[in-house]
């Protein structure tokens, strides 16, 4: 069980059960949909950006504990941050779960996803919200898939 707890850390289980910033965001001015065809997970990200700052960030959808917790923690990490920092954090998160495992300096709580790197089939669960966020920042209206 100890190995399993490295993947499913308490913070991940908690946010998987009780996602924060979950639901619609009427003030949002950018949206994007994400889809993981491997497992059927669907995610929608609502973003309110004002003067280059992420004023609010919500998400909706169904997913596994890892994808839900990842989306939930992402919304907390980015609320109030400048757009440029959101992109920086995206890069750091990607490096953590899909790259060489380097733990970037801005990650904070997000380091709990470090264990996902050992499970190639689950990396897409952790990154779906972040890919969708990228699309919302661009707001090009295309659905993002993990494929």
């Amino acid at each position, binding site marked *: 069980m100890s190995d399993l707890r490295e993947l499913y850390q308490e913070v991940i289980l908690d946010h998987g059960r009780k996602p924060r910033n979950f639901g619609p965001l009427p003030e949002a001015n950018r949206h994007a949909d994400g889809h993981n065809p491997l497992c059927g997970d669907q995610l929608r990200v609502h973003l309110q950006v004002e003067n280059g700052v992420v004023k609010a960030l919500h998400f909706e959808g169904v997913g*596994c504990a890892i994808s839900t917790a990842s989306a939930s923690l992402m919304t907390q990490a980015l609320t109030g941050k400048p757009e440029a920092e959101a992109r920086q954090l995206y890069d750091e998160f990607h490096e953590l779960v899909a790259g060489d495992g380097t733990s970037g300096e801005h990650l904070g709580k997000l380091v709990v996803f470090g264990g996902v790197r050992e499970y190639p089939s689950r990396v897409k669960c952790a990154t779906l919200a972040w890919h969708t966020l990228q699309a919302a920042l661009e707001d090009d209206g295309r659905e993002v898939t993990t494929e």
Partner: protein
Amino acid sequence: MNTALQADATGAATGLDADRLRADFPILAQEVHGKPLVYLDNGASTQKPNAVIDAVGDFYARDYANIHRGVHTLSERATAAFEGARDRVQRFLNAADRHEIVFTRGTTEAVNLVAASFGGQRIGAGDEIILTGMEHHSNIVPWQLLAERVGAQIRVVPLFDDGSLDLEAYAALFGPRTRLVAVVHVSNALGTVNPVAEMIATAHAHGVPVLVDGAQAVAHARVDVQALDCDFYAFSAHKIYGPSGIGALYGRRELLEAMPPWQGGGDMIRTVAFEGSTWADPPYRFEAGTPHIAGAVGLVAALDYVDGIGLDAIAAHEHDLLAYGTALLEQVPGLRLIGTAADKAAILSFVIDGVHAHDIGTVLDFEGVAVRAGHHCAMPVMTRYGVPATARASLGLYNTRADIDALVRALQRVTEMFG
């Protein structure tokens, strides 16, 4: 649940000694995450007995060459082995004629063959194809591609909540433009065994031919294409303990003879000239290119292995496990079985309240238990039941009650972690 767990962990008296048969499958004797491997993903692919592994290895070591037209000894041997495999498949399906067996890469390619060749010739604008709501994507998408190309319509037989087909609705779908029925024999997502003989009789009463997707059926029950009276029957070797990359299409002879080629290349021609070419007779007309020759040899070994045990004994053993597993899973808190039809084979598909199937799959893997988690290439089934995905334990001849007990124990870990 505990009473049942303790009552009998040794297997039932079905005349099949799964514990002994396990020794024929070297891959099963390993640990995963420090736990003995419990392989319950047979619906996706089955493991291979030594008889198959050795047959393929020996063929490459002694007899391999390209088939047909070679005048040298190895080519003669390889051709005899490949054509012998055709005879073996004919016998396995009880087809009337060896020329009714076309080798393909698997079930998917077989369906695509029929859609492209038969469908391209016989199905046109305004015509209708009947599918069921429980088809695998490989028995939906080839028909959609055809329908989009020619302007045909797809009609879908609805499912009852238990995962059985609404046969009255099925009968009502036939009309003057119905050209084909394509139906799965055993559902990979639900385990439902469809009454294909009855469905074929209904279709034939309307003069409509039927393709049966037998991918999930052949390893679990005896199939007799003449008794079923089906027009096409498709299966894959890798789901019946044989190699991946080879399968077969049974096609009624007069249908195959009237069908045009679907892929061009070597082996499928009679004569080639730039002014025009002529086609070989079936089955060669549909076998362009060098096939998976060693795969056919492995398929023979697999069919010999399965017939050596007896499909009736395998079916009885798996039904015992299915009943045992169903009773235990129904007692897991929050667990709901998806697919509870009266006639089921080898599949336990389920969801657990508040836990995503992928999390179930990962936790089970840590306990050494291999199941599949996802939509099982049957997204319309997931939509029908309002779930994004299910976890699926699918049984094979080497599974035991101890495997089911291990699954249930591992599910207790899932409940502890996510409950």
